[in-house]
């Protein structure tokens, strides 16, 4: 029994036909938001992270039907190649991306932190990223990048 889901994705209102058993991750990928990655699909790795009403959540443990009338932001909604978000730019500048699979989720977790806490400590950054697994890098670069992006977003650089 399909139903119509009303959501705003990256600022655009959408009406999407969904089945009751579909998770948001699958809907977003079907709608073309391929920056939302499918990793563990059980709420651990964090690569499917999106912002739901401005809070970071894992879209693999969320039924699409739970998000009626919600605002969703994916990695596609926060910056472009020509006009990247300061966090994206900091990740490039610090050279912290290897395979890249974890990065969309990690950047959105970082955005969730910096939107609420413009001057986080290193420990606060670590805690904000602790739901995003990266198997290539060892995290130290990403933590540096988030701190650098925080300074840019505060207008200090």
């Amino acid at each position: 029994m399909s139903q119509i889901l009303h959501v705003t994705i990256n600022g655009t209102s959408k009406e999407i036909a969904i089945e009751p058993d579909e998770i948001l991750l699958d809907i977003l990928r079907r709608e073309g938001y391929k920056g939302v990655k499918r990793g563990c699909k059980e709420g651990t790795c964090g690569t499917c992270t999106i912002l739901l009403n401005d809070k970071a959540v894992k879209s693999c443990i969320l039924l699409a039907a739970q998000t009626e009338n919600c605002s969703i932001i994916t990695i596609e909604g926060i910056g472009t190649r020509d006009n990247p978000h300061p966090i994206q730019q900091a990740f490039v500048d610090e050279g912290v991306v290897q395979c890249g699979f974890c990065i969309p989720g990690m950047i959105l977790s970082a955005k969730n932190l910096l939107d609420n806490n413009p001057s986080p400590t290193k420990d606060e950054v670590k805690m904000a990223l602790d739901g995003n697994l990266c198997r290539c890098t060892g995290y130290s670069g990403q933590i540096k990048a988030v701190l650098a992006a925080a300074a840019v977003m505060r207008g200090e650089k």
Partner: protein
Amino acid sequence: MYSNEILSPTSLKEALAIKDQYVNDIFPLAGGTDVLVMVRNKLGVWGESPVLLNLNNIPKLNFILETDSNIEIGPLVTHTQLLESPIIQKHVPALIKAISIIGSPQIRNLGTLTGNVCRASPAADTLATLYARDTQVQIQTVNNSKLVPIKEFITGPGQINIPENGLVTKIVIPKLEGYFGDYISLRQRYALSIVVVSIAVEALLSKDRSRMDDIRISLGAVAPTIVRATKTEILLKSNAFTKNLIEKAEKMIIEESRPITDIRSNKRYRKAMTGVLLGRILREILSH
């Protein structure tokens, strides 16, 4: 297949009517951070792709209220909302400590306190403090509403005592004026991990600080449910509060706890740690 059907009522009355009609064939869904993992992995009753009762379209179930003697928390309140709530920060600081290390930020943004209670895990971070506070759970059916003490509501690992047509509609935490509250948990690491052993304490010192007028100690992950260390509580209440008494209490709580060995830790270590953690908290109180 996650669900055959999902029903999304927009009022509590409607939700209770649906639960009354479907009884054991429908499962309430709030955050879903645990439910959807169990459905996906086909664990227990969740393997049958159950009909889900989505409560997220009932905004009235999302509240944190302060009354004269209690804090009342609605079933849709997420862990993040509790962390950010001045009411909880002021009145239940030990709960803030417990919630701040649940899962990951993304889990805390979706998962709810009521979900954590209804999941009834002996290792749940929030439960130790809720037991120390003698928290009550409000259960509602179409024509009835009652408050049940949390230790009667949770009957075993994953087991709760609720009528087949009932929904949890409120968590009621009594205020404790003048108490010192603390929570410590040991885990294998501090991200995305589950408790190895945890302890929550709520203590009220006498005015001259020589005795404990009241103390509640609860332990997590050492029994099929959270348990209160009642013998140790009595020992601490019936003697002068000194370094010597703390040492006796450490020994007694080790005797009193009955943990098991499982994938996360072993019996001997868990037993020993109940003493260490209690000692840490009591020395902190003594030194203040």
